[in-house]
């Protein structure tokens, strides 16, 4: 791992350091068709830490999330995570089109067997958290892309997961909405203090959101750089235009370019 700024400026004292919520240990993944997707990846995500993995497309970033959640099984190595408490946000909002916003937000809780009055109340709280109040009775086809993503986020929030996995959730929305959703997600992260593992190919998004950025190489994906991001919270959206921010983005982009070659 690369040496990083040894003096983190972020206010991360709220959570006991070292209590790892998610651990990858020597994880490798080879698909049955012979594709070697992930090669010997090891890292921890502690509670209250927001880790983003960036890498060229097809480098196995998403595979890491699927392994963490149990949707795929690693060929070798192991993952330690409390699977009863995961929030998984997909690339698509994956809302059920025949359910209203309210009923979509209730879905995870419903499938996990939470009783109706409780899950309805929890869903209302989550809808409030993501600013969808007033849209509860709408169907997904009536929502904009950004609203769909918020609804998807609310669905995971209902269960108050300790670990949140994000699989390029804002890849399909426009730049302005994406920045706005990033701001909102940061507030949520500070509010809920979950451990976050976020996948993206936007370096800017990675730096803005994270307490730590991991850079992966082209396939087979292995970790080639690991940065602590020490900008303090709460982060203002203008942070994106500061020199230090740009410098770090530039550094990570340079690593990514090396990763391609």
């Amino acid at each position, binding site marked *: 791992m690369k040496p990083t700024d040894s003096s983190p400026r972020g206010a991360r004292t709220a959570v006991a350091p070292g209590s790892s919520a998610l651990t990858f240990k020597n994880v490798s993944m080879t698909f049955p068709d012979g594709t070697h997707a992930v090669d010997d990846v090891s890292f921890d995500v502690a509670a209250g830490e927001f880790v983003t993995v960036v890498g060229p497309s097809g480098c196995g970033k998403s595979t890491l999330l699927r392994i963490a959640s149990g*949707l795929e099984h690693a060929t070798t190595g192991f993952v330690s995570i409390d699977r009863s408490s995961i929030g998984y946000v997909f690339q698509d909002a994956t809302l059920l089109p025949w359910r209203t916003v309210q009923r979509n937000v209730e879905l995870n809780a419903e499938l996990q067997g939470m009783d109706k009055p409780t899950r309805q109340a929890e869903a209302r709280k989550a809808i409030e*958290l993501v600013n969808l109040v007033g849209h509860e009775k709408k169907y997904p086809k009536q929502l*904009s892309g950004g609203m769909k993503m918020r609804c998807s986020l609310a669905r995971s929030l209902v269960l108050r997961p300790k670990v949140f996995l994000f699989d390029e959730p804002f890849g399909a929305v426009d730049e302005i909405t994406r920045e706005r959703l990033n701001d909102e997600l940061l507030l949520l992260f500070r509010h809920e203090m979950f451990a976050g593992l976020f996948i993206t190919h936007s370096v800017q998004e990675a730096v803005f959101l994270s307490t730590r950025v991991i850079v992966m190489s082209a396939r087979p994906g292995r970790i080639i750089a690991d940065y602590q991001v020490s900008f303090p919270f709460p982060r203002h959206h203008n942070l994106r235009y500061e020199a230090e921010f740009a410098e770090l983005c530039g550094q990570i982009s340079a690593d990514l370019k090396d990763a391609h070659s």
Partner: protein
Amino acid sequence: MTALDHNPVTDARDSTTAIEDDSPPATSAGPRSDRLKNMIPPIFTLVAFIAAWYLYSALKYDIAAQRRNALPYPHEVWSDGFLPLSDKVNGFRPILGYMWPTVKVTLIGLLISIALGTAIAVIMNLSKHMERALFPYAVLMQTIPILAITPLLTQLFGERLGVRLVVVVLIAVFPIITNTLFGLQSTDRLHHDLFTLNQASRWTRLRKLEFPSALPAMMTGLRIASGLAVIGSIVADFFFAQGDKGIGYYIRTRQQKASERPEMFAGTITASMFGVLMFVVVSWITTRAIRNWHDSARSRS
């Protein structure tokens, strides 16, 4: 309290997009004059069709032989086939009397087809092995020439209501099986992942995910099957003469003599009107069933 502060600019933009998405197309909400305009093309087609019918009948009319043509004039079908209102053997009243058993057989047969077809599709959807084991025979069932196995069907189910229902089901069940199966199998992969992450059971997955996803496809199957069910119940009358005879019997018994051709055509037209009515009613129901959330439902309403 919300954890996020509101940004009116983005939110306004979000909701405008949503409202635009939400506005219904002009045709369905248009004024009455638009509806009248929409009726002109089909009426034009009808007039052209009747004109062609007259032309054909006139060309084939054999005065010397003093007998009716295979295709009587439209006005003869109207006056001889439909109009004798007091006649107890021919005309509109007996046609309606024969229609009732046809309607009954069609509706019951269609309901059986829905239940059976859906059940078969659900079983096929359980595993690839199940699908491989059953699908070829579902296709085979569709290709059986029913005429050839009428003696067998009679032996198995008698000649009354039961055997007519069997014919309807044999004809109507296939599109329900294939469309339901297609619908169940085209459930979004990420939705499946979502249910896997929540440790959903096979039954929950079927009930809360696959079944609702399959609904639009199932509705397509139902629309096709409703037309086929009408054909099935009429065809059954051609093969089986016992029990409550339907409109097919009326048509068949007036097919032989040239003098009764107008009656035959009157029966046929009534039967196909029933088919059209079935299609319209089923389409209306199926559109209502999914219109809240499915895109296809909007343009058809």
